[in-house]
């Protein structure tokens, strides 16, 4: 049986995510219980706010190693959303330098807005994503999703960035994937029908 767990570490609007999953006919649990997390079949790491603060919270609740164990040793499906995606990487340069979970090699850097005065930070709005790798994501090609972020996730291995969107002349990494671990910069729970479809896709993945 499917056991979908949303990691609760006091970081963001978890209710919308839970309700989004309800909308696609599934149930989920919001929890920070280590056993529940390890026993889940699908784990979602949400997150808004600052990277350093979020890592501190994961450590405070003893979840850092639990999430790594779930993803790297047990190799079960993990979805990081927005800041949750950025946390998957090795390090971030948001207000200083912070170590991330390091599940996917790469770094989190600020959106470079020096090239075009129209580029605003945070980037807030809907963008169509372009799927470049992983045929199984093809169904989301050119679909619009809602983004709100000031930083971007740059994977060391370019093959692990499977989708991007254009923000003026910038390419914003939109989906990253390494084996059983997926990260999306956009908020599926805030991206109307396409977003719900994306959640459905993840929750039905093996």
């Amino acid at each position, binding site marked *: 049986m499917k056991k979908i767990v949303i990691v609760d570490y006091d970081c963001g609007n978890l*209710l*919308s995510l839970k*309700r989004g999953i309800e909308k696609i006919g599934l149930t989920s649990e919001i929890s920070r219980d280590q056993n529940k997390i390890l026993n889940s079949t699908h784990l979602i790491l949400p997150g*808004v*706010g600052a990277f350093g603060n979020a890592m501190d919270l994961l450590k405070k609740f003893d979840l850092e190693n639990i999430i790594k164990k779930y993803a790297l040793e047990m190799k079960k499906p993990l979805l990081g959303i927005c800041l949750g995606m950025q946390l998957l990487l090795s390090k971030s340069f948001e207000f200083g330098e912070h170590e991330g979970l390091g599940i996917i090699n790469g770094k989190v850097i600020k959106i470079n807005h020096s090239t075009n005065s129209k580029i605003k930070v945070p980037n807030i709005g809907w963008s169509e994503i372009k799927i470049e790798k992983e045929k199984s994501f093809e169904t989301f090609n050119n679909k*619009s999703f*809602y983004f709100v972020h000031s930083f971007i996730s740059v994977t060391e291995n370019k093959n692990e960035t499977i989708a991007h969107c254009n923000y003026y002349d910038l390419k914003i990494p939109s989906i990253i994937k390494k084996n059983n671990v997926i990260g999306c910069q956009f908020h599926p*729970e805030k991206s109307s029908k*396409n977003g719900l479809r994306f959640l459905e896709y993840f929750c039905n993945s093996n």
Partner: protein
Amino acid sequence: MRIISRLDIKNSNLIKGINLEGLRIVGEPNKYATKYYKEGIDEIIFMDAVASLYGRNNLYEIISEASKNIFIPITVGGGIRSIDDALKAFKFGADKVAVNTAAVENKNLINLLSEKFGSQSIVVSIEAKKIKNNTWEVFTNNGRQETGLNVVDWVADCENRGAGEILLTSVDMEGTGKGFDYDLYSTVTKSTSIPLIASGGFGKPSDLSKLNNCSKIDAIAIAYAFHYNKCSLLDVRNEALKSKIKIRQLD
């Protein structure tokens, strides 16, 4: 360009006034919110019109209901005075909170909120009244209370304090449907690098193109024109496409 529907709430009703005064009941908020969501609106703003006057907020039930069926960003404003108020709004399903009166009274609130929840979830709502040519003053309490703050200075201050977005309402144009205060948005967007939402005055689709031509605006909030069926979201979207303004692609 984001197209946002703004729903002003009093008690449990959707209301609309002119220049933020003379509030009339339009109907049941979630009926309208759901309709706009289904039509493809990009975001929804719920604004408690009387909370800052009486220091209370009836919005939570409405947001909680909305977040069961509406899967786009929801901003909640009106009567948000503290970290606890914001936490409560997020807990009930808000993605962003908008602060106005409390932020003017205690500017540090913006710093506190953005440090705690991240800039992306903090909107500063500003009510602007034109006081002379090219000068606007910040008002609070639905355009009743003058503050002595200059709008351009206050926007810059909000940005420095960590606001993620500015909802800038022209009190003079609000509820009139006579078009935006174009000078206001053209002036303010010159000096800020965070997203700015124009609110107040939208009456017909061509207002969007006119605003886009004279300013670097990121979003418009529409209330009057949608609630009173002066035009539909489709009309606004068609105008945007005609003027080559980039909007969300609907399926």
